[in-house]
């Protein structure tokens, strides 16, 4: 199952061993081997491999030497989330209730708003559009969609929390705060759709840096977030000055 972005893309190559990284991704997010088997059972389409390999693999670079790098990092993650929910809204409505579909559409629009905000804020410093790969997601399975959504939202919370201290421009720090709390609202709602009451199960987020004993949510540096996110991104991302 391929995303529409595959067809639209003009660049990008897969740079990671997806099987390994998906397992790592799933285990980091607390999904068991059953979930892993479910996801890996969605096969890969060789045609698209050929398609990609025949294109220019330009890739992109995120340099964390300054705030532009951090904003591009956020832009990359928001691109991923926006693309995911765009697929969900297009393909998954049959497996959700009307109210769930309404909120999933809300989340899609929030992520698009975040993505477009960063694109505009970065202007000519923005990285290009990333090519995504959601072939591991079964968009007609409620469990698959919600598990992936949970993973993205919790990872987003971890990413903003873990990068905040590197932001040197106060206005951007506040913006990051304005976005991360919305991601946390998403995460809580998604989790409650999987299991009511799991909205802030910090014990399940230990691998993402949470500490239940202190009431602290997830927080991870880009060096840990990007390899997880990369399992869904085909565009090669070169990282400089990672922390």
């Amino acid at each position, binding site marked *: 199952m391929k995303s529409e972005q595959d067809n639209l893309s003009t660049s990008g190559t897969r740079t990671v061993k997806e099987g390994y990284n998906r397992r790592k991704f799933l285990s980091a997010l607390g999904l068991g081997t059953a979930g892993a088997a479910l996801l890996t059972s969605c096969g890969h389409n060789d045609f698209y491999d050929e398609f990609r390999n025949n294109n220019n693999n330009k890739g992109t670079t995120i340099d964390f030497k300054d705030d532009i790098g951090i904003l591009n990092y956020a832009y990359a993650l928001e691109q991923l989330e926006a693309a995911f929910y765009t697929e969900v809204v297009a393909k998954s409505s049959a497996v959700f209730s009307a109210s769930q579909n309404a909120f999933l559409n809300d989340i899609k629009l929030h992520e698009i708003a975040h993505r477009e905000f960063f694109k505009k804020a970065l202007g000519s410093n923005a990285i290009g559009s990333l090519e995504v790969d959601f072939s591991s997601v079964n968009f007609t399975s409620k469990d698959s969609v919600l598990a992936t959504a949970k993973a993205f939202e919790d990872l987003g919370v971890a990413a903003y929390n873990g990068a905040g201290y590197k932001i*040197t421009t106060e206005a951007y720090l506040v913006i990051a705060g304005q976005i991360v709390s919305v991601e946390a609202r998403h995460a809580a709602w998604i989790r409650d759709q999987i299991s009511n009451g799991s909205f802030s199960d910090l014990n399940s987020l230990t691998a993402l840096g949470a500490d239940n004993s202190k009431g602290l949510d997830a927080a991870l540096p880009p060096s840990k977030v990007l390899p997880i996110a990369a399992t869904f991104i085909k565009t090669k991302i070169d990282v400089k000055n990672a922390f």
Partner: protein
Amino acid sequence: MNILNILSEIEKVDEDIYDRLSPRRRVMQDFYNVGRKISMAALPLALSSMFTKAYGQSGTRTVNDVLNFALTLEYLEYHFYNHTVVGKDPASSVKDVTFNFPSTAALQAITTIRDHEKAHVDFLKAVLGSAARPELAYTNFDFRAGGTYNADNSYASGGTFGDVYTNYATFLKVATAFEDTGVRAYKGQAGFLKGNQVVLTAALQIHAVEARHASHLRQMAAAAGLTIKPWITYTANGNDTGVAPADAVYAGEQNTTQATIPITNIATGVTQAAAAESFDEALATANVVTIANLFLKPAFRL
């Protein structure tokens, strides 16, 4: 006027002063180098600009100020929920929590939130150590917001939220307002912690937990009949809860322009509602203090 003495005095209360002025003290060297050429009359101005840079807009808000401010809010949240959870225990001496939770899941959710708030109190106290503010007890708060209390601290009458412990819907409204205030308050303090890996990161981690709480409480409020989403949607005055006394909590949430960029219609489908929902807003210290003071008895107000 001796600038070295001034800085030395500041260092006694703020040992990071030199790092604030310049992580590599280059600014200080520059200052010494230039200082010989500056007349005495110009010194206060030169100092003033140095401190504006070092402390941002706050002037003198320290990391401990921020942490103690956060600790006050965490005490408020903790005691609000704890009184409820304890009050639902039949064996407890707390008898004024008379509303019933609609399900064990609802009580469990409030217990989960209570436990996080307690963890935040303990964590902030531990970080602050001897610099922690005096402890706040349940009886230091007025969760009815303007209620009158008997000599034994039992509730007598009145208050904007007089039925907060007798009406489940009111309880959820106040809880939602507290969590949304907490989310805004931490955001408003973030700038004072800029660059501080340990403290800013922890503050952001607490901030996200408060946002998760807010999301769930809003779902509970919706289940109890309120028209409300897990995220704060657009209304003309920012308050999407329909609870007029909470207007101050949401003032500004109607904003749809971020860093001068208009969000409404930034892409197809991004309505005014989506634009407001997609970014939560910060709240300045003074505004948070005004809200917190509504729920603190006079002797304990900030």
